[in-house]
């Protein structure tokens, strides 16, 4: 009797050990898939980063001779050695300023309205689909639109204002979509808490919705702006000049009335166009200038994205839901 019991216990133990071994084999097989996927993912990441790094370092090496302060303070010139990007970066800066001042208020207001105020029906669905689609429209189409609307229709000419408005239109969908996403991330419980103490819609928007979504909104804005910075096609379409040896009138002056808007109607060029212009020249010396310009555009873009990440981190740090 006792013996029998012992034997059956022993058999049970053996089968348990066998089972355990099978379970371990199974886990090992499953984990192998983990490793395979992680390696594929890592490979994809490294490839993408390497491409970017190669591109960037290539531009840096090619353009190295031009990395000196003169490059930033000289106008373009027929002699490559003397040519600089002063008019291009000032132009880019001013165009970006117009883009920022138009796209951000309009985009944030539109996003807020769609999320907080608009009734949810087929019309708002239609608008939503269209806004998302606009983000995918090729930029040259915006250029054609701007040529017809701003340059000829509104007679704004081939000016900084036209370029800024065009790029503003281009990034408007990005700003709207990121505003809506940021607003949607705010939990309903926080909104209800604000309404429950008797706040009006505008008080909720002003004191809560905008405050807690500003990190996400700023991120979207900066990503949109860095896209606008590199856009070439629509700017060429509206007819930006490629060789500019003057600066637009300064927006701020030391004499009254201190602020003027003449610069808005001034001709201009921007960094990617300056680069494009130099690239199309046969003289090799200009290729160096183009490379240096390209490196600067990438560097500024990276910096802007870095700021976006930092901002998001800083603002999100105080918010936990």
């Amino acid at each position, binding site marked *: 009797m006792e013996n029998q019991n012992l034997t059956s216990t022993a058999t049970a133990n053996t089968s348990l050990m066998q089972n355990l071994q099978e379970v371990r084999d199974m886990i090992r097989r499953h984990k192998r898939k983990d490793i395979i996927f992680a390696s594929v993912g890592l490979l994809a990441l490294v490839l993408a980063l390497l491409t970017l790094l190669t591109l960037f370092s290539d531009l840096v090496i090619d353009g190295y001779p031009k990395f000196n302060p003169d490059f930033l303070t000289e106008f373009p010139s027929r002699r490559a050695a003397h040519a600089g990007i002063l008019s291009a970066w000032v132009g880019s800066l001013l165009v970006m300023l117009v883009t920022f001042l138009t796209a951000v208020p309009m985009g944030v207001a539109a996003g807020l309205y769609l999320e907080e105020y608009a009734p949810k029906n087929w019309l708002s669905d239609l608008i939503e689909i269209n806004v998302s689609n606009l983000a995918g429209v090729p930029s040259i189409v915006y250029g054609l639109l701007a040529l017809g609307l701003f340059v000829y229709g509104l007679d704004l000419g081939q000016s900084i204002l036209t370029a800024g408005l065009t790029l503003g239109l281009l990034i408007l969908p990005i700003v709207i979509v990121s505003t809506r996403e940021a607003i949607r991330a705010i939990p309903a419980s926080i909104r*209800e*808490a*604000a309404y429950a103490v*008797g706040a009006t819609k505008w008080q909720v928007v002003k004191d809560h919705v905008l405050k807690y979504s500003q990190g996400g909104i700023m991120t979207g804005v900066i990503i949109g702006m860095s896209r606008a910075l590199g856009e070439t096609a629509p700017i060429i379409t509206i007819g930006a000049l490629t060789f500019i040896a003057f600066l637009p009138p300064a927006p701020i002056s030391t004499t009254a009335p201190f602020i003027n808007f003449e610069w808005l109607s001034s001709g201009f060029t921007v960094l990617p166009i300056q680069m494009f212009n130099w690239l199309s020249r046969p003289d090799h010396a200009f290729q160096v200038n183009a490379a240096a310009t390209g490196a600067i555009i990438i560097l500024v873009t990276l910096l802007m994205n870095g700021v976006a990440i930092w901002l998001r981190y800083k603002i999100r740090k*105080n918010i936990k839901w």
Partner: protein
Amino acid sequence: MDQVSHVTKAESRNLNFYYSNGAHALKGINMPLYENKITALIGPSGCGKSTFLRCFNRMHDLYPGNRYDGQIVMHPDNTNILADGVDPIEVRMRISMVFQKPNPFPKSIYENVAYGLRVRGGKNKKVIDDKVEQALRGAALWDEVKDRLNDLAFNLSGGQQQRLCIARALATDPEIMLFDEPTSALDPIATASIEELMTELRNKLTILVVTHNMQQAARVSDYTAYMYLGDLVEFSKTDDIFIKPKDKRTEDYITGRIG
């Protein structure tokens, strides 16, 4: 519990409520809310107790398509707070609410409590300071936070956050305070402190509390309403409902036969 003071602070009259998807969530509810008493709403999940509670501060208005039918009349002014002409914001200024999960704003402790006052246009720092202190004392939180009023509210523990939400609801001197399962996210010690707080607050205002916890209803409330599938099955003094329920369904629920 005395038999004499039966001042009605508010009452729902034949209240029906329909969600935007057409669900008939409340079916002809008639129920009084007695002044300076705690009334508990109990019932299995989905019975409409939270829906009923949220009618009192017109929270349903925030979502399109919801519809009220019937009245909730507040005394002594006899205002039907569900009437079209009554602004939900006015209702929320008189009736405040504490939610299921502590939901402080991502702001400082001070600003959380002060928010209701700021919404009402309060600017005088001295007045707001006093009100904030009063409210925090009222919510039994003052001693724990008085040295760090400018800290973020998120740094408080769960129970402290819920008391902060009570202080926020208290700062504006509401006539009625609604509690929607206020302790369901809290541990037993924090729960006990919230319950104690509620019984103290009863002296100042009228309380309506939804709870899924029958012991809690028995511990804190003066009156209890049992709801089932959108109906108000039974309403009476808490002692009566727990000791000798009149309706079979109430008895089944209280004895644990339906949950």
